[in-house]
Structure formats: structure tokens, C-alpha cells
């Protein structure tokens, strides 16, 4: 499903910083993987490459047997839309749109009609248990509710993989567990999830923990 071979990534910012040093990784369909590592180990960089938000220097990355390399912005946008769902630490909802409009936005970029996409969005909000908040703005919602909206948004296009970057980083422990339960149930329905976290309790709820150390895979352990 996800196939990374010998991925190298450097940031040139005055001095060159070699972040990923020939990283190899396989993630199978339906897995729930947690990526852990010290700050600066390259875990966020890895996630950004997986999400086609960032580019890599050398190596190959296959997502669903498609080579993700040197894509034009247009094609990258298309793949992000169809193949990947994002859940961010800071939610990244559009502040002037209601919950249902936020969830429906990826469908807007697929060209789905307004009525149809709002219907689908409502379905996913309902699944997340926040259908009553559909017409509220993000600023009127709690952190947990916002993250549920974000998860609904990531699911709405039925992507191949959900990439979650510290999804519980901004939440208290009770809400964090709720959000993790949601991700687990999404995973049980067959969705592949890759989550970056530095919280061992959250990582323990995944099936597999991958530790990144100095730009390569340090260890892989099954939970």
C-alpha cells in the first residue's frame, strides 16, 4: 500500500540539514501505524512526504502502486484530494465556514454538486456524532468537536489513507481518548491510518509503532 525506498530529504536553510537518510518503509492496507520519535528525528517530514505536502530528494515512494515523484501541483492536488485524508494537530478548519461546509469542501474540489456534497458531509458528521453542530462555526466548538469535524473531512472523499499529525496534541486526555477511539473505529472499517505522535499512551492504541531515529527507522514493534 505504502512503499518507501531509500528516501532522502535535506533542508537547505543556510546550512544543509539532512533529515531523512535513506529511509525504507512498508505499510499495508488496513494497518493503524503510529510513528514516534524525538523532535527533529524526521517524523513530521516523513508524514509530509507521505501526504504529498512536501517533496523528497532521492528514493521512491509508491502510494497504492502510483509513483509519487516530481508531480505537478495540479496532479499532486488531485492525489491529495482522492487518495489522502489529513487530520492536523491544529485542526486546520476554515474559520469562516460552518462544520458541514468544512467537511464538504474536498467534495467541492471534486466537482460534486452542492446538495449532494452537503448530504454526504452530514452523513459523516452524523457518524462522528456531531450532526447537531453542523451549522456552527469552528470558533463555537470545543477542541474535540473540531477534531471530529476534521476527521469527518478527511473521510468524506473515501481516501486510501488517513494521515494524522499529532491529532491529540491540542486536546486534554479524556478528549484525546475519545478521538483515538474514533480513529480506531474508522480503522476497524478498513481504513489505513498513519499517525505521528510523541505520546506513548496514544501510540499504544495503534497496531504498530514505528520509531524514527536520526532519519531512518529505528525499530518497529507490534502492539
Amino acid at each position, binding site marked *: 500500500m505504502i512503499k518507501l525506498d531509500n528516501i532522502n530529504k535535506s533542508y537547505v536553510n543556510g546550512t544543509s540539514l539532512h533529515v531523512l537518510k535513506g529511509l525504507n518503509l512498508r505499510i499495508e492496507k488496513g494497518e493503524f501505524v503510529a510513528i514516534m520519535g524525538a523532535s527533529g528525528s524526521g517524523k513530521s517530514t516523513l508524514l509530509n512526504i507521505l501526504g504529498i505536502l512536501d517533496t523528497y530528494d532521492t528514493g521512491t515512494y509508491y502510494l497504492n502502486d502510483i509513483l509519487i515523484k516530481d508531480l505537478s501541483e495540479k496532479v499532486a492536488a*488531485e492525489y491529495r484530494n482522492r487518495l489522502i485524508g489529513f487530520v492536523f494537530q491544529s485542526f486546520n478548519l476554515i474559520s*469562516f465556514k460552518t462544520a458541514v461546509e468544512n467537511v464538504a469542501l474536498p467534495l467541492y*474540489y471534486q466537482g460534486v454538486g452542492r446538495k449532494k456534497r452537503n448530504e454526504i458531509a452530514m452523513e459523516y458528521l452524523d457518524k462522528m456524532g456531531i450532526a447537531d453542530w453542523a451549522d456552527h462555526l469552528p470558533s463555537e466548538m470545543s477542541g474535540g468537536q473540531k477534531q471530529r469535524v476534521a476527521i469527518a473531512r478527511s473521510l468524506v472523499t473515501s481516501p486510501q489513507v488517513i494521515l494524522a499529525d499529532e491529532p491529540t496534541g491540542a486536546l486534554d486526555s479524556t478528549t484525546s481518548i475519545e478521538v483515538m477511539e474514533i480513529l480506531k473505529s474508522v480503522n476497524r472499517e478498513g481504513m489505513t491510518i498513519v499517525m505521528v505522535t510523541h505520546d506513548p499512551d496514544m501510540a499504544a492504541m495503534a497496531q504498530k509503532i514505528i520509531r524514527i531515529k536520526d532519519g531512518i527507522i529505528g525499530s518497529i514493534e507490534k502492539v
Partner: protein
Amino acid sequence: MFDLLNEIASSLKKNKLRTFLTGFSMAWGIFILIVLLGAGNGLRNGIQYNYGSSNMNVSQMWPGRTSIAYQGLQVGRRIKFDATDGPYLQKELPNIGAYSAKNTIYGANIVYGNEYVAAPIQGCDLNYTKITYMHIIKGRNINQMDMDQTRKVIVLHKRTVDILFKGEDPLGKYVVVNKVSYQVVGVYMDDDMAQRPFALIPLSTADKIYNPAKRGYNELGFYIEDLKGNMDDINEFDLSLKSKMGHKKQFDPKDNSAVYYYNTWKDYNQAQGIFGGITLFIWIIGVGTLIAGIVGISNIMLITVKERTKEFGIRKSIGARPSSIIKLILTECLMITACFGYVGMFLGMGVVEVMNMMTAKPTVGASQDSMVTFLNPSVDLGIVISATIVLIVAGLVAGYIPAKKAVKIKPIEALRYE
């Protein structure tokens, strides 16, 4: 398309201050432009009205008596103008566009019913309108038939008509001038500066009735063309006009009392300078306002795009193509600038109309006292529309450049952007 508009409408509605600021800078630019241009045009029209007859380059010549002996001819000889003088001078001097001979009868009374007006009578030929600031407002001017048949027809000044006829239609009526009756064929208006405006009759008629002794015309006027040079050129023209006349009438060109001569070139030139200055002033106002407007709209678009960098990052992460984001920005910009540009245009036109209503119209019959400084403020609709388009395009360009930059940022950087 409907979806895109919906998307924009929701973004505009949720960002009221930003929408208002962008729109306001657009509307304000157009509004100020129209009001200033309108006021500038009003000023120019007002001054142009005051200048009236000075806005023509004409010269006039009156006959006198010689003061210098010339080729054996005595001092004190009377110079007489006749019908051959005009054609001769026009042939000799290509700058003369038209000439007109006049005979003026002073001390006449024009009588109609129980009313009378003391007004000089001007016997004039067909070229009179070319060398005089006047226009027919009713009926017709004197024509060739009048001249050929020495008809007793008369063209009256508007003020004379107002006094004599008191609202009655003057055309076809007969007025009596020193015991000779004339039919009124037209009414004219000039710059209204004369205390006693002329009444016009055909030159041939005037000659026959008032000048049986053939004493010659008492004035010769010329309309001068293509003489926009400096003072030296005009002095040269004056000199050659006088020497040609001296050659024909046999007097010394240096003789200043053989003919009296006046050229309006100085006044005309000054008036042209003032109008040129005002026109330049209006242009500077217009272009300056437009530039201020462009800067304003560009600024706000720049800030708008900057402020939305993170939003664009989010949109890109969920699958928005760069082109769709640029389209979003540009359509939004177009909608705001077009709508508010229209509002500014509407309000500006309204203010110009109010100015137009409030400025005093020059009152007929008040003569010298009716100086105006402001008249008919108006703006050319074509200029207004092109200015609006310029501002809209400026807004689009000002939106496009940062938008292009914003969509080039990697989504990951845009997402981090606060």
C-alpha cells in the same frame, strides 16, 4: 460557476471588514475621480463662458486720416474702406480665414408697440458670425438672399427681444428703426457683455438706407487662422497686413492714424493658456486620483492574499488545484471592485448632478455683472467607465501577483503560516 459564486459569497459575507475595505477603496477612488473631474470641468466651462469673445483670434481695422505725407499725397487725407479690400487682403495674406465688413449706425431706437430699446444697428455681411462670438438661438441669421435683395430684415439680441416682446414670439413681427420697419427673422445670443447689444441688418440694406453718400465701411474684421506662434510672428503679420493695406490705399505703413488696428491675439493667447492650464490641471487631478486608487486597491488585495495564505494551504491540502485558488481570488476581486465601482460611479454622478443644480445659471440680461466661475459641471461617461475598468484591472493584477506567489508556497509552509 454558481458554486464558485456561492463559495465567494460566503467568504465575502464572513469577512465583512475586509470586503468593506476593498470595496470602499474602489468606490472612493471612482467617487473622488468623478467629483474632481466634474468640478474641474465646471471651472473650465465657467471661465470659458466669461472669456466669450476673447476666445477667438480676430483682428479689426477702422479707417482714419493720414498723418504722414506719402508719395506726394497730403497729410489729413481720409482713408475709405470699400468692398474690394477684404478679398484683396485675403489673397495677399494666407492667414486670413475670413473677412467681414461692417457699417454701424449709432443712436438708433428699435420700437415695437409701446416699447423701445436704444441699440446700435450693425450692417453686416455673411462672414460676421465667423469673426464674432455669437450664435443664433431662434430663427435664422442674415443670408445671401437678404444681401442680394437688400431686404429689410433684422436679427435681434436676446435681451432686446425680452424687453420688446415680453414672451411673445418675435419671428415674423415688424419693428421700427428710425422710421424704417424691419421684419424680425432671428434672435441671437453672444457673451452678453455689451451694455447695448447690436441689432443686425444686411450690409447692403444698411448701405442703401444709411450710407447713400458711399462713405465706405467703418470697420473691417478678419478671422485669423493657423497663427499659433510667438509674439514675433503676430507682429510680423500685423506689419504685413498694414503694409498691404498701405499699398492699396496709398499710405505710409508707419502711419499709425491712417488706419486703426486691433488684434485680439494677446487676449486669445492668454485665454488659450488659461484653458490649457485648466485642462492640464484636470488631467493631473484625474491621473493622480487614479494612481491613488490603484495604490489603495493594490494594497488591500496584497494584504487580503497574505492574510489568507493559511486558508489557501488548507484548501491545497484537501485537494484544491492552484488554478482554482487563483480563480477564487480573482473572481472575488472582480466582484468586489465591479460592484463597489458601480456604487462609487453612481454616487459620484449624483454629487455632480447636485453641483449642477446648485450652481447659479448665468442670468440673461444682467450683462457685465453676471460673471460666473462655475458652469455645467459634467463628466464624460466614457472617461468614468474607462477609469473604473483601469481600477478593476489594477485590482486584478494586484490580486494575481501575490496569489500566484501564495499558491507556489508548498502547502506545508502555507499551513504553518500564521
